[in-house]
């Protein structure tokens, strides 16, 4: 699960990770109040107004702005709140900004130069262990660093038997070129960060940049926090941080019906049981000359209710010119699914696109008979190859 920067920072702070302090605001007026409070608490004359959306690259799209006085705070906040923010990660349509984070200015001048670093914590799947990935090249796109200067990216693996050790945090601070107080601060920062990662059941932390301030403090200026969906049952307080306005509304509706749905841009909708077969069905749509309009896994219990919910979701997409239902019945009996399709079809009534139903496995023959005798405008198939041919046929 994705959460906002301000939520991620709250979590980090609760584990002793130093952060760029800030206050979230829904309106320009709240933004001004927040700026006043930051001045009181931290003496911050300047503040940064940061759009809160679930996508990176916000600065590039004009979603992060410096404000040097309260008038500017109000102006910047009213510019950003409500804007459709387009970043390299949002797609062309962008994302609507509902909240801004008013954050203290941490790039103030002082005894030493400020310096930005990159730090992330994530699972190395091939090793089955967590790693801390870090770089001296902070504040940049890490993909670009990986492509052009891969020798500047370091990885530190954590042994699950003993956890993160002191020598590892020191190694990281040394590799980042730090000394004196900043060195000590960095070892504390890394230790607290990893503790937070473990305790929260996170699947990724990406802190970019981590800043060394001009007075040698180390703090998180940004925070991308991904929580492991499977671990959320242990953290109801974090689960409550889900912001459904950041998700595709159809995907939210699907998840409420226990359907795993991802919207795509094609013209053939599909409804499948099992994630692997669902992806394979998308592939066969492409081979048959179409483009998949979605990924949709109805899970292990395909019945009339789930089939109907799935139909309604797929039919919301005006680009859908045909629907392919592909069910391999194991525990699920095909004749039940077929009856579900027939009932849902009759109940919805006005389905104007051709439907191809391919049912294989338990009671497949009975299912085909049910579909064929229903009198509905539904094409039935048993072999995957036949279903693919039918897709080509209806698109022609």
């Amino acid at each position: 699960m994705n959460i906002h920067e301000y939520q991620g920072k709250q979590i980090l702070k609760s584990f002793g990770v130093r952060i760029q302090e800030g206050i979230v605001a829904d309106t320009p007026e709240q933004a001004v109040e927040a700026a006043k409070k930051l001045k009181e608490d931290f003496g911050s004359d300047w503040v940064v107004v940061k759009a809160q959306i679930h996508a990176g690259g916000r600065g590039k799209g004009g979603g992060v702005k410096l404000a040097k006085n309260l008038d500017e705070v109000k102006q910047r906040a009213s510019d950003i709140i409500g804007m459709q923010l387009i970043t390299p990660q949002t797609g062309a349509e962008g994302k609507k900004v509902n909240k801004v984070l008013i954050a203290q200015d941490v790039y103030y001048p002082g005894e030493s130069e400020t310096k930005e670093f990159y730090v992330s914590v994530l699972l190395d799947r091939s090793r089955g262990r967590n790693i801390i990935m870090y770089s001296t090249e902070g504040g940049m796109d890490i993909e670009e660093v990986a492509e052009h200067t891969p020798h500047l990216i370091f990885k530190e693996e954590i042994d699950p038997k003993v956890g993160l050790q002191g020598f590892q945090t020191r190694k990281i601070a040394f590799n980042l070129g730090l000394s004196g107080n900043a060195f000590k601060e960095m070892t504390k920062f890394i230790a607290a960060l990893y503790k937070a990662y473990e305790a929260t059941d996170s699947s990724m932390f990406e802190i970019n940049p981590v800043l060394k301030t001009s007075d040698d403090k180390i703090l998180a200026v940004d925070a991308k926090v991904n929580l492991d969906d499977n671990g959320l049952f242990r953290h109801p307080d974090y689960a409550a941080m889900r912001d459904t306005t950041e998700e595709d509304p159809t995907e939210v509706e699907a998840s409420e019906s226990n359907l795993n749905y991802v919207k795509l841009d094609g013209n053939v909708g599909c409804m499948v049981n099992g994630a692997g077969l669902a992806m394979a069905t998308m592939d066969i749509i492409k081979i048959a000359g179409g483009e998949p309009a979605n990924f949709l896994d109805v899970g292990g219990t395909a019945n009339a209710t789930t089939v109907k919910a799935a139909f309604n979701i797929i039919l919301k997409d005006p680009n859908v010119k045909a629907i392919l239902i592909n069910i391999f019945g194991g525990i699920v009996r095909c004749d039940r699914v077929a009856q579900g399709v027939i009932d849902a079809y009759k109940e919805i009534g006005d389905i104007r696109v051709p439907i191809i139903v391919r049912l294989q496995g338990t009671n497949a023959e009975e299912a085909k008979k049910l579909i064929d005798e229903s009198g509905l405008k539904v094409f039935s198939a048993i072999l995957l190859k036949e279903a693919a041919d039918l897709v080509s046929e209806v698109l022609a």
Partner: protein
Amino acid sequence: MSVLVNKNSKVIVQGFTGNEGTYHATQMIEYGTNVVGGVTPGKGGQTHLDRPVFNTVKEAVEKAGADVSIIFVPPAFAADAIMEAAEAGIKVIVCITEGIPTKDMIQVKEYIADKDCRLIGPNCPGIITADEAKIGIMPGFIFKKGNVGVVSKSGTLTYEAVDQVVKAGLGITTAIGIGGDPIIGTPTKDAVELLMNDPDTHGIIMIGEIGGGMEAEAARWIKEHGTKPVVGFIAGQTAPPGRRMGHAGAIVGGAEDTAAAKMKIMSECGIRVVESPAGIGAAMAEELAKLA
């Protein structure tokens, strides 16, 4: 011959008396699997499905001689169940449970590393040796005995491949559903290696999907050590990038993450890669015909 399990395997079910455990244990017994009992803590001494219920896996090993376990325990308790089975001396542990936190699986992987056991899954359909033993949730009737081994991350896509193999006039030795989670006990390469060493398996079907580097690892192993034809398919050629993994993860996974990249590596390693999931069975039949 076959791999991992056969008609002599003594199987117990962890989470025996729950709904899932009861339903699938019944199906497994009907298939002919030698289910010798089950474990539900607190219900030891009872009888369920005409078989003894034990309080602990250790007891099931000592009293019923269990050497294989299948786990239907809810996600919050599944890691504990796997470790209990490993500690008790179970040789093959099949974990069906979906939704185990990654943090728990990191611990499990570490815990079982020096135990004499093999973990299949979690989040998998299980394993089946045709006509001998079904330790999983797959529809048993589609599996006919033969000479093709199957390794797959996905449940229903495995059934699809098996169905095509059988319709092409061939059959199955053992099908291994390795599971779709980020951390699993038996990666693709290990499962392929098991089948490569099984004299009754003449050809191998390897089904993967986007994400991770397991298929590339298996392909390179096959290039080096392969002695049998392998047919491969990768699901997700049309999947949009970036929907499953954050971008920092994509760096660790490297450029071998996408379906196209995996298929290219597999082809280069001598695997017969099919683009259409409808062509898996026919390709295997062709490859085996070349041997005859």
